[in-house]
């Protein structure tokens, strides 16, 4: 066998192993009522055949659509906020100033904190007797029960996400900003462009690709949001902060309705693939 093929073989095997087998298994299970508690090993899941019942259940799954809506809400709030904050910070870091390297090293720290640990940090911060309320109480005594209020819990979760992932935007966008040719910015200045005009006509168009990449990466990750959120709220109170991943986790480990989970997983995979194809085509243009 050729060396090139031999070199790529292990990776190909792993990719097949994680895509083809699971897909086939999922397809099989998704057509049954099988669960780990069924008393039969999974190869015998056909004994619990229920044809397409799992799929027809999806449209009526209110908890699913609520979770999806919440996931999208987190996405459309957090990603733009992170983008704007990251861009603002990036613009501050284009010019040199004393202590820049140290400030940079500190500012990118949050994204390297283990997400579960970050979740725990914010769990502590948002305790009713915790530092957030303590800081807010300069305006008067505050005892907000952040994590047990449905909407405030979601806010707290988003704050944690923004804290952890703004540095990523900052890091990527700064790399892009630094790459904008200085001479072009100076030329624009000498032609009378204001800072805002320079930003709009030179910086932004030059950063288009980078901005797209940064937004895409963050949007994908935000869609999968689990660790911080689950540690902070466990999806609660009730189901108030349940996102797609949390919902999946719960019906997998608590409800154990694996046939339905498999159907749902396939549904999500197919939807995401279509969305990705669509997005790629638009990006290519």
């Amino acid at each position: 066998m050729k060396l090139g093929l031999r070199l790529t073989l292990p990776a190909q095997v792993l990719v097949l192993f994680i895509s083809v087998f699971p897909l086939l298994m999922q397809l099989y299970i998704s057509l049954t009522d099988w669960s780990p508690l069924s008393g039969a090993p999974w190869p015998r899941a056909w004994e619990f055949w229920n044809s397409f019942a799992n799929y027809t259940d999806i449209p009526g799954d209110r908890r699913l659509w609520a979770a999806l809506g919440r996931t999208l809400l987190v996405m459309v709030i957090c990603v733009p906020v992170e983008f704007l904050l990251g861009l603002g910070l990036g613009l501050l870091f284009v010019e040199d100033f004393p202590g820049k390297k140290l400030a940079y090293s500190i500012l990118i720290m949050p994204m390297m904190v283990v997400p579960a640990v970050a979740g725990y940090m914010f769990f502590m911060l948002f305790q009713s007797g915790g530092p957030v309320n303590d800081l807010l109480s300069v305006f008067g005594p505050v005892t907000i029960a952040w994590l047990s209020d449905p909407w405030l819990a979601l806010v707290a979760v988003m704050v944690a996400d923004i804290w952890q992932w703004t540095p990523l935007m900052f890091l990527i966008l700064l790399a892009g900003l630094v790459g904008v040719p200085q001479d072009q910015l100076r030329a624009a200045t000498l032609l009378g462009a204001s800072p805002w005009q320079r930003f709009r006509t030179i910086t932004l168009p030059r950063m288009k690709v980078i901005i797209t990449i940064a937004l895409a990466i963050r949007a994908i990750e935000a869609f999968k949001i689990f660790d911080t959120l689950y540690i902070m709220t466990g999806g609660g109170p009730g189901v108030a902060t349940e996102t797609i991943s949390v919902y999946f986790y719960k019906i997998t480990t608590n409800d154990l309705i694996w046939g339905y989970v498999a159907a749902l997983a396939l549904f999500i995979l197919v939807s995401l693939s279509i969305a990705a194809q669509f997005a790629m085509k638009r990006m290519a243009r």
Partner: protein
Amino acid sequence: MTAIHLQGLTKRFGPFTALQPMDLEIRDGEFLALLGPSGCGKSTTMNMIAGMEKPTGGRILFGDRDMGAVPMARRGVGFVFQNYAIFTHMTVRQNLDYGLRMAGVDPGPRTAAMAELLGLTDLLDRPSQGLSVNILQRLAIGRSAIMEPAIFLLDEPLSNVDAAFRAVMRTELKSLQRQFRQTMVYVTHDQLEAMTMADRIAVMDHGVLQQVGTPLQVYNRPANTFVARFLGAPGMNLLPGHAVQSGSAVQVDLGPIGLTPPLPGPASGPVTYGFRPEEVTLDPASPLKLPVTHVERIGARCIVHLGPVKAVFPAGTEIPSGVVGFTPGKPCLFDAKGGRI
């Protein structure tokens, strides 16, 4: 059109002095070349005129207006960058009318006129990426010129251009300047560009202004040994010697080479005796004698090495071998510190 006055202009970067206090008048409508080797302070000077760098000391006046507090966006200076800094994500038209659009002025008629003037009309809606370098140069100049700046600054615009193409670009640049009639400051390390295009040349070295004058003045009457050596290819011959007074004239004892013909003016002690390679004539009767060590024949000219001295003759000249006598024309004398006597 505006005159530029530099008064005691100084620039230091930390402990390093990039520009010693410099006084220079750039006349209204003049094409002045700032000429010098890299690191001589010429670009720093121009960046300060444009407002891209802040002077450490001294003043810059446009006409009678002090530019100290005027930011670069409002100096009304046209600037052509070494790499032209074309906005490659825009079309030719978008580049050309950029300044007008930013100022909120209707770009239509002025853009068309400028494109016509520069021969860019057919290219207006082409993307500016991938255009040839002479078109980029025209575009860079047009983009600034459309704002009708009083002053035009050009930062080595030909240094990235193929040698073969430079002559074309020089001619084009000079004719553009004649059309616009603006005050132009042109930074270059290439003496040929300075000599062919400039009205006056300011020669700089190590952050010090060495001499200002017309191309012929700085060529024929260099203020010091640096200018003498820097201009001309090859540069001026400079021989160390000893001045000997003879009546009202001076002769220079060049040691083994001989005693020079008399020159006007008083001088004494150690001096440097300089003369252009082009001004050397072979003359068996001359008191100055050196052996021919090497002959370079390069097309229309031949360069004859007489030990430390270089002489330039037309291509067909018969060069004798062995020790020859020679007479330097238009000699210059420099004192021990290199200044002209």
